[in-house]
């Protein structure tokens, strides 16, 4: 505790500095008086006594100085003095201080924000026990063009029995069903069927109630569900009495047995744009070994056994793969693909985040360069002040210390503001981002990020001011004082800084430009369906009201027929998975009659259940053949051009047969459609098969209405559904244009961030060019004055002053374009239809930067033409 007391005394002493000085004076005066009196008492004359007392005491000032040192905490007092001086000096030049502090606040604040997102989404470990040992296992079916297919039931049983390096293999299967909670409307929801060991494998016990019992995934077990925290809160208002309650899934009853912890979230992929995450988890009650060997329907999640390296687990998987390839896949190159859960989760979103992170780094570098230029200019202005102080005895260390104090004050102020900026930035970002950004709820300005930001501010500040400070302190005071204009040399440094700024700005502007071009192209692209003029209205039928297929089929037939007659509707249909709805379903299929074993003829496709008229309403074109025909028993399908090209190259698909995997029912192909991009405007995906809704009715369908003004139809569609069945709610009502817009949210978010950074970079670089030109002009004012007096043409003088800045810009542009080429691999993944070295974009960037730079240089340079030669020459 003594050290604590000592610090307390020191701080108290600091607070009462002048008082302590007075006390010291008093004490010494007292001592001298006592000594003098003692000497007088011994018979000395007062004068002599006074002299002897002082002599015995020693030098008073020396003793006081030693006393101050001895008291400890001396450096605190010095620091306080330096800081006070710094604040005074900064207040003396408010412009400089404001720019320093604001630059730091914005630069560091933005970095902290982005780092917060990247940290939350990419870096933080998943909320499972030992998440690095969790692997997702897929079937690599490259021979049929599917690099990651779900596993089959028998494969999972094989992994469970044969893979000794895996502590467990859990099964999950995402599904959608119409869910009815007591007192709520039926709603189709995504949930996940899992094997009973799922939560044990992840190491996440429920927060409330219990998890699955080991025997609950056998066939015939009662259906039980564990709710996600979010769903529990939204559907049950967080009522803990929900345990033991019932919910209805399609037409079966399930019992709620548990609620998961708040941060639990399980997903196998995520992007900044698409939804993921299950409302609840139900027990998968099947015998995996008895599942069809060609039916790839199960997600595999494995935990590597303790003490086993990932590499060893992977090599064992490779051995098992080779055996299965021989025994089951006819040696056509099957293999298990394993990927870390976290790696897979962030795979889609990583490139965007890395580009943004890179951009923030670039912006920070530009900002530092600007601060350095600023500081350098400031020091060159203060050269005389420093020289005078050095001449009257201020040590170099003292000068540097004072500069550091100024920097620290700036950095601290900037850092504090940066905290505010980061907080606002993160809130704005969370607000702007699609609500389903993975782990969005986990984002927050955490103290670590802020601490890092503050340190960054100080580091940048110190680095940018220390070099010029050292340079200034090193210069001989006599030399500086002798100079007519107190300009400090070091012109090379700002020159290099400007080149760097221009180069980095080029990279940022080019990246932003490329993203903008991509977005524009993406919005103009033809995704295979109409991107406007379509209304979408989803219905989740209540199983209790529509228990059998015939009634479901009849309802949708009637709804579409009536909808087509609504005024303003040009065409109407219904579909199970509308484009960009994230509700597609995959099925296995084949064009040859099924055989008992896997003959390699099966393929995975996106199954689309549709009514006649859907293609026209959605604007999906027919390449060949005809649309589905009305009627309850039409055993026919449509396939898309992707499947037709792959399987019927050179011939026509129309008239050929199609079978669902594991089914012998022959369905005739009556037409070939354009490929509609169901997932992403920018990417083709699996082949598609359109199945008549009438032969395989689904309860959840989306009414699709083509109209010139779709949003005006909303009311009449509600009216229509109410007219057919008053008890049936509409789940989702939107337009295809809104859907398209939403699907671009991620790209737009990244673009707007980058555009912001690029603009900031442009502004900073322009300021840098202005600064350099203006100080060059100031330095050469005298020379120019003489030239002007001798009759030089004003415009030629401007050109002379501009030559250097223009050279710097040119060099910077060249370096920047090189950087763009070098980084093309990083951005390629984010671009659509634009090469990373798109000439139009790059030329635009060059023109923009040159124009901005020339303008920034011309303003100070034009001062030369206005200056009066006599005034300039007289100034010194």
């Amino acid at each position, binding site marked *: 505790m003594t050290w604590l007391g000592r610090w307390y*005394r020191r701080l108290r002493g600091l607070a009462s500095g002048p008082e302590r000085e007075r006390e010291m004076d008093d004490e*010494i005066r*007292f*001592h001298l008086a*006592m*000594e003098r009196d*003692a000497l007088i008492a011994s018979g000395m004359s007062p004068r002599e006594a006074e002299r002897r007392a002082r002599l015995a*005491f020693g030098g008073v000032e020396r*003793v006081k100085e030693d006393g101050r040192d*001895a008291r400890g905490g001396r450096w605190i007092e010095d620091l306080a003095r330096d800081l006070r001086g710094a604040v005074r000096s900064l207040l003396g030049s408010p412009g400089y201080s404001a720019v320093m502090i604001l630059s730091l606040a914005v630069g560091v604040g933005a970095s902290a924000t982005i780092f917060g997102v990247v940290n939350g989404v990419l870096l933080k470990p998943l909320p499972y026990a030992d998440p690095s040992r969790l692997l997702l296992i897929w079937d690599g079916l490259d021979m049929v063009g599917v690099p990651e297919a779900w596993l089959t039931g028998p494969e999972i049983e094989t992994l469970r029995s044969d893979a000794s390096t895996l502590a467990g293999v859990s099964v999950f299967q995402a599904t959608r069903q119409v869910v009815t909670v007591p007192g709520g409307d039926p709603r189709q929801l995504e949930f996940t069927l899992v094997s009973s060991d799922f939560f044990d494998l992840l190491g996440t016990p429920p927060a409330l109630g219990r998890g699955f019992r080991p025997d609950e995934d056998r066939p015939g077990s009662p259906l039980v569900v564990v709710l996600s925290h979010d769903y529990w809160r939204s559907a049950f208002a967080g009522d803990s009495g929900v345990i033991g309650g019932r919910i209805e899934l399609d037409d079966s009853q399930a019992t709620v047995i548990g609620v998961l912890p708040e941060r639990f979230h399980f997903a196998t992929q995520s992007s900044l744009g698409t939804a993921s995450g299950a409302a609840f988890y139900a027990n998968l009650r099947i015998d995996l070994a008895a599942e069809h060997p060609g039916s790839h329907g199960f997600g595999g999640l494995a935990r590597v056994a303790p003490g086993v390296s990932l590499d060893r687990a992977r090599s064992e998987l490779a051995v098992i793969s080779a055996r299965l390839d021989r025994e089951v896949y006819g040696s056509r190159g099957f293999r298990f693909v394993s990927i870390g859960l976290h790696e897979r989760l962030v795979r889609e979103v990583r490139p965007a985040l890395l580009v943004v992170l890179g951009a923030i780094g670039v912006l920070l570098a530009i900002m530092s360069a600007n601060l350095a230029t600023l500081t350098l200019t400031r020091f060159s202005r203060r050269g005389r002040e420093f020289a005078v102080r050095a001449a009257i005895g201020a040590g170099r260390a003292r000068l540097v210390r004072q500069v550091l104090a100024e920097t620290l004050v700036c950095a601290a102020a900037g850092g504090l503001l940066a905290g505010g900026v980061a907080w606002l930035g993160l809130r704005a970002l969370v607000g702007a981002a699609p609500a389903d950004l993975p782990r969005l709820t986990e984002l927050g300005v955490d103290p670590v990020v802020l601490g890092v930001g503050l340190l960054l501010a100080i580091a940048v500040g110190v680095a940018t001011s220390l070099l010029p400070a050292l340079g200034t302190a090193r210069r001989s005071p006599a030399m500086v004082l002798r100079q007519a204009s107190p300009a400090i040399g070091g012109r090379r440094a700002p020159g290099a800084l400007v080149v760097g700024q221009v180069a980095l700005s080029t990279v940022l502007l080019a990246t932003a430009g490329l993203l903008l071009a991509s977005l524009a192209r993406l919005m103009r692209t033809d995704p295979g369906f109409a991107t406007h003029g379509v209304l979408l209205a989803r219905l989740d039928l209540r199983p209790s009201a529509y228990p059998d297929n015939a009634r479901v089929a009849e309802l949708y037939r009637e709804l579409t027929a009536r909808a087509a007659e609504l005024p303003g509707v040009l065409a109407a249909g219904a579909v199970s998975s509308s484009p960009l709805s994230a509700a597609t379903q995959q099925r296995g299929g084949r064009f040859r009659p099924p055989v008992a074993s896997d003959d390699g003829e099966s393929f995975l496709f996106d199954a689309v259940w549709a009514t006649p008229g859907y293609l026209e309403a959605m604007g999906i074109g027919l390449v060949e053949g005809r649309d589905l025909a009305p009627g309850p028993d039409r055993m026919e399908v449509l396939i898309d051009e992707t499947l037709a090209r792959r399987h019927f190259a050179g011939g026509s698909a129309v008239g050929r047969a199609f079978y669902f995997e594991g089914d012998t029912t022959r369905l005739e192909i009556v037409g070939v459609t354009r490929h509609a991009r169901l997932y992403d405007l920018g990417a083709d995906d699996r082949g598609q098969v359109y199945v008549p809704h009438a032969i395989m009715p689904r309860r959840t369908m989306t009414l699709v209405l083509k109209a010139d003004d779709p949003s005006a139809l909303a009311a009449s569609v509600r009216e229509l559904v109410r007219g057919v069945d008053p008890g049936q709610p509409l789940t989702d009502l939107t337009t295809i244009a809104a859907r398209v817009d939403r699907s671009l949210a991620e790209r737009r978010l990244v673009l707007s961030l980058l555009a912001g950074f690029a603009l900031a970079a442009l502004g900073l670089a322009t300021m840098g060019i202005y600064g350099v030109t203006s100080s060059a002009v100031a330095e050469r004012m005298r020379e120019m004055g003489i030239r002007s007096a001798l009759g030089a043409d004003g415009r030629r003088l401007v050109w002379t002053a501009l030559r250097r800045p223009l050279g710097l810009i040119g060099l910077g542009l060249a370096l920047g374009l090189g950087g763009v080429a070098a980084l093309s691999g990083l951005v390629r993944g984010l671009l659509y239809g634009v090469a990373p070295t798109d000439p139009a974009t790059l030329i635009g960037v060059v023109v923009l930067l040159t124009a901005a730079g020339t303008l920034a240089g011309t303003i100070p340079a034009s001062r030369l033409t206005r200056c009066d030669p006599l005034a300039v020459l007289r100034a010194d």
Partner: protein
Amino acid sequence: MADRTDLLQGTLDLLILKTLRAEPLHGWGISKRIRELSGEALQIHQGSLYPALYRLEDRGWIAAEWGVSPEGRRAKFYHLTPAGKRRFEREKADWRHFATVMERVLESS
């Protein structure tokens, strides 16, 4: 020895602690007492007493209050803190140990 005006720093500290062990004193009193106790053999530069006092105060071994001297002057009186008392015992022991060792070394043949 009689001429020594400079003392080892630690020695001065020890002397101050020893002096204050008996009673609280002001600065001049301490310097006078040291002169008396050592029979004028130890002559310290009076001024150098004060930095030593401030250092000991900073360490928390002595503390001070302002009071009035018997002569009626305002003076700063120093006293030992409990930590200072412990420090004095330790320094005394150290010094004795040091002295014994030196003695042994010097007396050895």
